[in-house]
């Protein structure tokens, strides 16, 4: 296994803790806004009590995480890896989810499947071509034919 670690584990852990605190504070601010949008957060039966309590809990836990990251004894370590490749694939996934409304299911899947294969290092053109055609055809027909799920159609297909 890959045992190399990232430098600055503490920094990353602190950033994570800050992100958790930010989420907690954001929900807290909404719940305690004026006028209280979902009822009195101190009334246990109201719609605001439960989210208020959880948001408080999350914020508190975030602070604990932040403090524990800077304990002298703590040894925070994260494995490093091919993060850039993963980010590239993630960008592909986001593009796929956003563009399906305009491009339609066929075009999106026929592009996304071989492109992800390329991220994994596949370069043989015939494999990529097969991946572009066979799995989308099978899966889309399975979903539409048997389960009656109709996917969005784009401008082209």
């Amino acid at each position: 296994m890959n045992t190399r670690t990232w430098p600055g584990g503490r920094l990353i852990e602190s950033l994570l803790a800050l992100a958790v605190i930010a989420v907690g504070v954001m929900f807290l601010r909404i719940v305690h806004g004026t006028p209280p949008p979902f009822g009195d957060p101190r009334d246990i039966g109201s719609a605001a009590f439960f989210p208020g309590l959880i948001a408080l809990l999350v914020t508190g836990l975030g602070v604990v995480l932040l403090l524990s990251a800077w304990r002298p004894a703590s040894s925070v370590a994260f494995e490093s890896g091919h993060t850039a490749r993963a980010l590239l694939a993630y960008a592909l996934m986001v593009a796929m989810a956003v563009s399906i409304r305009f491009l339609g299911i066929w075009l999106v899947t026929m592009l996304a499947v071989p492109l992800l294969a390329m991220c994994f290092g596949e370069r043989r053109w015939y494999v990529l071509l097969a991946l572009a055609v066979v799995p989308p055809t099978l899966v889309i027909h399975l979903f539409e034919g048997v389960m009656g799920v109709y996917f969005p159609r784009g401008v082209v297909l």
Partner: protein
Amino acid sequence: MSRPLLTRTFLAASLAAATALATGQVLAEESHLPDEPIRFVTPYPAGGSHSLHAGIITAVGEEFLGRPLISVIRGGGGGAVAAAEVAGSTPNGTMLLFGDPTINSLRPQVEDLPYEMDDFVPVARINYSPAIFVTTPDQPFQSIGELVEHAEENPGEVVYSSDNRNGFTYTVFEMLKATADIEMRGVELGGGGPAVTQLLGGNTMAYAGDPSVVGEHLEAGSLVGLCVTDTERFEAYGDIPTCQEEGYDVVFQFWRGVMAPAGTPDEVIAELSDGFQRLTEDEGFLRLIGQIGSGIQFLGHEEFAEALAAEQAALRDAYLDD
């Protein structure tokens, strides 16, 4: 657009048995509908009476509407998510909402929802059912009059199972509380199943629900019917009086009807309305509807529009003017 393979096989086998004749050319004249399947959107999660009705309608509907019907089950927000989606779809008859009074008459008036009442035009009412007020045999009250008396003597002590805020049960109990001027506490349990469970388990004292939900317990004797929220008695349970007979003016008919987004051309509405009318006259369809303990009270698009407008006005008076 290929018809689902499995669907076709099943329909071929089953329709042959169910309806002995009458497939073929139903639509002789030119159709105004686009040549694509119709998405029939059920606004509640699978398992309720809505999805059951929708399942039957979409399984049998194609030959009467001339287009395949796809059942889309789109729960969430007590129906608001599906309603907002249909309201925003292309108004050409390819996406229809299986609506009801809470989605189409009540909630848009009293809540801040992402759609308006006027975002929909009525196509056809399929049927309606009243609510039946029920209790268990071991409660101190066994008629609606006794329930009201009990609630008057013990204000706030009667706890009843409710469904959702501004839902069907919620509304009829609000109406009862308003006309009888009593105080009772409702617990919103999210649906008919949990509501009946809590009543049977002795955690709540009363409930009001669809005959398909409470009917079997009435027959088995585990629940006692108090009154029916309709202008006449419910046929299958003729010994339960209407609420009006008992002196409480609570009338609420929970209809199930097909709604199209506003802006759908009139000729499309008329064609769909005719199609649903032929569907509701079909023997096989009626047999299936009968088996789920339901009936047909069909209204075409014109009568339905009138009835809907009257209902919306009545609810506006009841909720907003006092």
